[in-house]
């Protein structure tokens, strides 16, 4: 099967700081890929290169290729808005827009030209149902999104990302700000989303990677150290560094 995303010899610099070094990886379609590694190893940077959000970081420079369905997303002719519709993103800290719950989910479709009210209603309801928020908020869709708990806010952000029908969903430590119960809910959600679309989740929580992912990539000091099916990687890591990291010797 062709990979959904193929990264080839990717190098990223922040100013003079070389963050990602000759990184190549093939990301399979409709699976969950977990990216693990110690803080500052370049996990989040890799994620941001996949939807070109990295270009918002001042002083960032990207070299190498990054193919989405075989097309390099760094081609000058690629429309950024369409790329970011296809490759959605969920951030570490829940970041609902200062709008109502309804408007948060409807914002993406509206930006991409959906005007029909009934269609928007339908999208909002579906997406909120997918993240399990519908029953909790259906009576207060017009209330501010800030009235929700942090865990609910993060699920709202996932619903918002899903509303534009992305093919890939990038998640940057989506549970690190949440309590254990909401973490459970979102982990389950990641598992089920992995059957519909390609999910790439960055996490510093090794157990979480084991629970939610089909494949795991271990990055250390900007290099891809080991990559394989999650079960295999956790049971019999080939690289000594990987073994030390997943057994908790450093992190």
């Amino acid at each position, binding site marked *: 099967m062709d990979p959904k995303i193929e990264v080839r010899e990717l190098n990223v610099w922040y100013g003079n700081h070389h963050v990602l070094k000759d990184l190549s990886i093939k990301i399979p379609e409709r699976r969950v890929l977990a990216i693990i590694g110690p803080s500052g190893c370049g996990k989040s940077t890799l994620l941001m290169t996949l*939807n070109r*959000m990295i270009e*918002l970081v001042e002083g960032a420079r990207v070299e190498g290729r990054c193919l989405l369905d075989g097309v390099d997303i760094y081609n000058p002719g690629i429309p*950024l*808005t*369409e*790329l*970011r*519709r296809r490759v*959605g*993103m969920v*951030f570490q*800290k*829940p*970041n*609902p*827009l*200062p*709008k109502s719950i309804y408007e948060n989910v409807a*914002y*993406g479709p*509206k*930006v*991409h030209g959906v005007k029909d009210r009934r269609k928007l209603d339908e999208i909002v309801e579906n997406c909120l149902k997918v993240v399990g928020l519908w029953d909790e908020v259906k009576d207060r869709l017009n209330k501010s999104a*800030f009235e929700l708990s*942090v865990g609910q*806010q993060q699920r709202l*952000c996932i619903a*918002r*990302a899903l509303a*534009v029908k992305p093919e890939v969903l990038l998640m940057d430590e989506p549970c690190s*700000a949440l309590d254990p119960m909401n973490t459970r809910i979102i982990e389950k959600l990641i598992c089920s989303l992995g059957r519909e679309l390609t999910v790439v989740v960055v996490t510093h929580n090794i157990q979480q990677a084991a629970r939610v992912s089909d494949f795991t990539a271990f990055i250390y000091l900007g290099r891809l150290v080991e990559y394989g099916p999650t079960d295999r990687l956790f049971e019999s890591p080939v690289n000594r560094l990987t073994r030390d990291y997943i057994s908790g010797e450093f992190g």
Partner: protein
Amino acid sequence: MEETLKSFDFLKSLRRMDWVKLILMTIASLSIVIVLLIALFTISESIPAFSSLGLDLLLGDRWAPYYGRYGAAPLVYGSLIVVFGAVLIAVPLGVLSAISLAEYMPRKLGEVVKPMIELLAAIPSIIYGFLGMVFIAPAITKLFGISLGRTALTGSIVLSMMITPTIVSISSEVISSVPREYRMAAIALGATKWQVIRGVVIPTALPGIAASILLAFGRAVGETVAVLMSCGCVAKIPSPPWNLLDPVHTLTAAIALDMGEVAMGSMHYHVLFGLGVILFVITFSVNTAAWLLMRRAPRRLIKV
């Protein structure tokens, strides 16, 4: 020995601190006292006017103080129409400049442009008055084929130049303070830069932008010299009332023109203080409204 020295030093610094504190407190409270005294003085001097004329002072439509007619309605109307005109011109100019300054200009360029715009606010108002008299009034005469160029519109144009910096400077500050995570959220959904600005940044910054407009309004209402030089100083409600090409007179200009020649303690004298009170009420309520709106300007709202 050393111990005692240290504690002595400490005591000394404590005492010095108290002195500094005391002096600063006195100075700070002095300014409050001055404001209160000004208000008290203005109000007390206006009491004879209000008690003998009552609401006629505010609603009477004939301002002819040398004939004993003290109806300030034409002045209030003149002030408001000139200021509304100025705000109408300055708001699109100021808000769009603020957006381009905060969102589109490279940071280095913005750091040069913003102080230059703010410098416009530092130009003495008499210079703006010159500008209105010498350039804008003749231009209006030519443009509209009227005989007198000093009109409400002339005053509005001059005032708009004076208040635009206030709007630009506060609005661009508020726009820049819209949290980055809001923008990131919208950009990650595929919104274009303009969509982010229109759909996320502006709505979030709106209370602050509105406050900047109100502050500019307050400044415009109180402006005197430039208005006096460019509005024509005819105390009559234009006909029709929305005709911006008629000369008008304003509260501030009337006070400034008459105060020099009025007899101390006469009715005219007290009436001028009455105008001052009306002005006070307008600017005070506008500033309070601006302050209330400012408190709703963006803050980090996410608790994590």
